[in-house]
């Protein structure tokens, strides 16, 4: 999975906690670096912060979906705006978590997003047959 957040302390601490729980985690500190990783080694699930310098999380999300529409994306945000949250959900993000996050909750969401991705892939294959 790929974790994208510009806050170094948060990103590194969260990556560490997810690694301890058995995940293989790649990290990026901005949208641009995340897109490079998605192109070269597509992750199953991306956890993406909304407020980042340069490309915003929502902009990065749109670009990720262009590269690989099946990747599931969980958005993180420190902003409570309901408008933003619903807009992001309508764009097709898998879920939306508000900071400060509970690491277990993030873990469940990643598992759920992964399951959803695999089901979508299977259903797509089934439809192609």
């Amino acid at each position, binding site marked *: *999975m790929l974790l994208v957040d510009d806050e170094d302390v948060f990103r590194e601490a969260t990556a560490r906690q997810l690694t301890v*729980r*058995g*995940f*293989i*985690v790649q990290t990026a500190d901005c949208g641009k670096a995340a897109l490079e990783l998605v192109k070269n080694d597509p*992750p*199953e699930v991306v956890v993406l912060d909304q*407020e980042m310098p340069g490309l915003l999380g929502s902009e990065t999300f749109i670009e990720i979906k262009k590269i690989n529409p099946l990747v599931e994306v969980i958005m993180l*945000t*420190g*902003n*409570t*705006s*309901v*408008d933003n*949250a*619903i807009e992001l*959900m*309508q764009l097709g993000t898998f*879920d*939306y978590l*508000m*900071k*400060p996050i*509970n690491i*277990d*909750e993030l873990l*469940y969401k*990643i*598992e*759920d997003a*992964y*399951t*959803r991705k*695999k*089901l*979508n892939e*299977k*259903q797509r294959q*089934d439809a192609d*047959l």
Partner: protein
Amino acid sequence: MFKKLAAFSKRFFSGNQEPDGPVLESAAVETLRLTFKSRFHSFKLLLAANSRILEAMADMEKALQGKELFSMSFVQAHCTSISVNVFRMIADMENIAPGKYSALKERFIAIQRRIDGLLGAKKQLTERRLVIPLEAVTSDMTDLVGGKMASLGDVKNKLQMHVPAGFVITAVAHDVFMSADGLQREIDRLFQVAGSDEDRNLDLVSSQIRQRIMSAEVPESIYLAVVEAYTRMKEAANGQEIRMAVRSSAYGEDAENSSFAGQYRSELNVGFSQFFYYYKQVMASKYSVQAIAYKMNRGFRDEDIAMCVGCLAMVDAIAGGVIYTRNPLDTRDEAIYINSTWGLPKAVVDGNDLCDLFVVSRDDALTILRREVREKGYQFICYEDEGCIRTETATGQGSQPSLTDEQVQALADHAIQIEQYYETAQDIEWAIDAEGQISILQSRPLQQMEMVLPGPELDLRRFETAMVVEGGINASPGVASGTIFKVTKKVDILQFPEGAVLVVEQALPSWAPLVARAAAMISEQGGFAGHLANVAREFGIPALFGVTGAMTKVQNGDLVTVAADLGRVYLGCIAPLLEYKRPEPKLMIGSPVYESLKEVSRHIIPLHLLDPESRDFLPQNCQTFHDITRFIHEKAVLEMFSFGKDHSFSERSSKQLHYKVPMNWWILNLDDGFTHEINGKYVKLEDIASIPMRAFWDGFAAIPWDGPPAMDGKGMTSIMFRSTMNPALVPGLKSKYADRNYFMVSKNYCTLSSRLGYHFSTMEAMVSERSGENYLGFKFKGGAADFERCMGRVNFIREILERYGFRAVVNADNVDARMEGYDMDFMIDRLKILGYLTLHTRQLDMIMSNSALVNYYMAKLTKDIDSLISQ
């Protein structure tokens, strides 16, 4: 891609169920399996979202009781969380039943718009002026210049009293400043990140926000407007440089029921070269630790508070202080109270030092009724160049009265005029310069309280041996008890225990964040005119100030009783005195934050779709988010249940439970609820892998039912009458009530709809290693007895459920209970309780008019349950 998910995936997609025998599967069956798997996954996500919504709604309902403090971040975060999860449920429902309930989305958008409108509501200013000269300010400009300066405008322009020249940087300028470079957005984000720990992270959040404000550029438009206003002042002063007092005048500050006393910064004697630095300091003080704590404690919305800044020519005062036009502690006392000290009035309002008190009669002669001249060892004075300093008073000066009798009477005359103009008691800050000119610096409404002194019925001599302090100034009346906690430095604030008695050397405004947590306050210095005293009165916390040697008279950890009205502190908890304790003010109720929560809740919490059997149970009738979630939950269960039938898919059709004999219980396996695929008609208990169903059944079957309780004649008549009126109550007749008992299960999930005798219950449980997502829901309804006794049983069940940690609510004749977030073992025990109650509360409604039998059954059921969960 990653280890854990790979293992998880293998388990999920291979299925852990061994088929009974080799089965040839067609492509169509495989597609159905896949479709069902996908729908079941959406169903699980939907249930988790539903659980989060119910939990968030429970938080909101609790907050609406007004007993706890919460901020606007709480309201925002809960609304966002609920909206996101309702949206999530709609999306999942779309996957479960594509295209069938599309009207839900329209309802969601309509409700969401209403909530957005309420959350985004902010007072819109039609005015565009960034700076307004004080000559043009009047009291109807509160929105634009803040309460403090609006009030001062009238003192200057309507009452024609002397107020220093100056101008106000307006609320419009505040908005311009805060919106430049996304500053406000960044502040909102920092608050959000602090989350529910806002209180604990206060220091960090406050410092981060203030740093952001201090490093922001003052927008050019504000800069130019200020330079223009200052230049005019300078021209009027024949070109002389003017030093300024830069004072906060926030919107909402100094209102009648909220003082914000001393919560914001004011800078004195500022030269124009440093002006914008201090302007930003005042702006940043909106986010000082004490200001954030105060806002939170009083339920103010951050977005409602615009920091306007008043800029007045500095008065080089030889004496200054505060007038209370009435006694703040006694509404019957009509005298005027003048607190005064040498130098600037800062020493009085900050509560650092002792000051003189002159009490003046309101009669024509303005008779001075009382003079309390105290030793004023220190004074604040202006530096020659810039700033001010606390310095020792000259030898002999400290013990001299800081005002002459003429000055006292002139001040009293000002006070009466101002009070008459505002038609309410006032708290007035004033200064006198070397020429004897009186300047009014501030006037705001004064809160008055009644002292609560014990009458002759209480002999205080009984407690004299326990008295450790006598004397001091009653700064805020009341009685309270708690353990002593001395605070000498800022870091002590973090350690301050809830409900302790705060003891400090000086009654500084910076201790204000502790007021909401303290039972009472004692200070060696300070009087009843200081900011901290104001805040204490506002929060209803007893405060005794000016207690010489307080820091040594009591020790940390001492349990004491503070009786501020008596000017006494006693060791121990003096219960007879505590009977004079004031009721705690519910400051949240009616506050802007509270009202915001109340308004948005109206679109979230009420439930209108109560009866799934009703014709009105339709998406278009959803008026609130709760209606939407209720509708979706009901329909999602039905859709999952009917999948097998709708698609002629036998693998997903229900099986009959075979427990010793075939039973009237039907079970639908949603995924991995059986140990293996069952092809026949029956499923045995040992074939069931569902953790919650097994736990429920363990409780259900653990203790045999004694049979129906002995009914009295009244009970029998009641059941016969009700059966005549409602044929559905007669067992055997075909009706909607005569449905079977159904379980739907997966390994970690179970829902049950059951009818036993004349009552109906539903149970839903998610129990897995994911404790954060675990929940239990239980509803119990009906009975054959009359309404009163059905209610009796419902309350009987509620009492038992609450005893074992459920949150239970009784509505009409049903009880609705829920719990969430506990670990698996705890949940399993609670499921056993539900299983037990489902069986053993059968027909108990019949005995509800007999209190002896009620007590007997309460004792029996509780004993059984205790033995059940200790196994």
